[in-house]
């Protein structure tokens, strides 16, 4: 079975933020939540590079490990999803995540956190696939429709890729060979374990 992953090519990302906009529109993300964001280092000076980042759907996901009510789970395709009905808004996943993916709308009085919200790899949640309830809580279930996440589909420079990890690695290998540079799978070590280890499968 395919292992779903994200990959962003720093040589190609132009900081247009179309991925972030596509995500917000497709999933009707609540105000104040950014499931995907673009971060630029060395902004305005030589060496400027941008990367689009969201939940990386880690293999040994820290959020799953720390959730006190076990509301976060991983599908057989490696997509990390969560159950908003069970979430208690404690914020542990936010402490543990290296990519800043889990976010909390402040809906209640006294600044109490609401239900956690994060990127679903456009794969919805535990509700019935493509149901109204699923869309309201988690957004579109594009995987169930046979489509890939819209952020990557929308990317005009194909910097952001989503899909089977083996296919993505092949694409990146081809690009790197054409550039004569090195493989740029650096973000993967944090999310999926170092190459060659059991976690990296």
């Amino acid at each position, binding site marked *: 079975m395919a292992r779903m992953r994200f990959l962003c090519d720093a040589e190609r990302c132009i900081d247009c933020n179309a991925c972030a906009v596509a995500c917000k529109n497709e999933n009707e993300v609540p105000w104040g939540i950014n499931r995907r964001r673009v971060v630029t280092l060395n902004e305005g000076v030589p060496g400027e590079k941008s990367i689009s980042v969201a939940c990386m759907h880690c293999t040994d996901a820290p959020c799953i490990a720390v959730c006190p*009510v076990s509301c976060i789970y991983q599908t057989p395709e490696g997509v990390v999803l969560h159950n908003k009905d069970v979430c208690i808004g404690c914020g542990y996943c936010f402490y543990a995540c290296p990519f800043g993916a889990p976010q909390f709308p402040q809906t209640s009085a006294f600044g109490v956190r609401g239900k956690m919200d994060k990127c679903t790899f456009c794969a919805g949640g535990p509700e019935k696939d493509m149901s109204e309830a699923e869309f309201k809580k988690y957004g579109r279930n594009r995987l169930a429709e046979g489509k890939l996440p819209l952020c990557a589909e929308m990317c005009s420079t194909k910097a952001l890729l989503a899909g089977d990890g083996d296919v993505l690695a092949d694409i990146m290998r081809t690009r790197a060979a054409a550039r004569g540079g090195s493989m740029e799978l650096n973000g993967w070590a944090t999310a999926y374990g170092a190459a060659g280890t059991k976690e990296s499968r």
Partner: protein
Amino acid sequence: MTASARWLFLLLALFCASAWAEPNAEAAREQSQPGNNQPFWLDAQAGRVGITNAQNIDAGVLINTGGELWRRLHEGPFPFWGAIWLAGVPAAILAFWLVFGPIRLHGAESGRMVRRFAAWERALHWTVAICFILLALTGFTLFFGKYYVEALLTYPVYSWVAKVAVSLHNFTAPVFTVAMVSLFLAFVKRNLWRAYDWQWLRRFGGFLGGGEPPSGFFNAGEKIWFWLAVADIVHLSGALLFVGMAFGHIYIGTLGMRGAYRAMREGVVDETWAKEHHSSWYQDLKAGRVGEASDAPLIPSARPVVWRQTD
């Protein structure tokens, strides 16, 4: 400040800023090896803060591994040693009680009462106590829940319990904090260390007979993470320690020492009790160096609690 001085200041600031703007590693690499952005990725992995449109906490950081240590502590030694501690202390107290029994008075009760705690002091104590027990129970549910409670209650039911627990925990905490600070202020003077306290401790209370943007080593993102994680670990260590010690406090205040519970319920202790358990205070009291606690009721019209001796 005059206008010219302001301009001078601005020029100085600009000069300093230009001196900092050295070429970064990524820019240098683009010259020597175009297409190899290893320096950029090293920056990303080191948690350097960048520019982003997202307004969320720490959104400018691409990869922040600061939570990893927190995760390892939170999911490893804390639930393990915490459970041993919380089960071990009551077990040790039970063993102690079975072997030695409660502490009784050596002399006969005098029948004369001295007032040890005023009504407001007792009210404060029980406010702290009730909040503490609520916090401990809800905290236990949240921290140990997925190991013990969830298996007992099954998955969706436990989530509802946890939701109630998290709300109770959050709303009890401010009341507890205020009550605890008040209790501290009320008792701090009487808790200043005296020479005889060392002696008490030595004899175990008588039980034994004896780059750019400029950042330092850690950047802002790492620091925020660090303090969040530290705050949680301090909170957790403090809570585990506090709950364990509370078992001892509750034991000695109820089963462990005859006459102790009465001090906090009615506010009075027998003179013999005071003489045996707080001899220095008793001497101060007799010599008139300190006064007895006020016997004014908290609510002026309330009738005093009638205590029935059972043992």
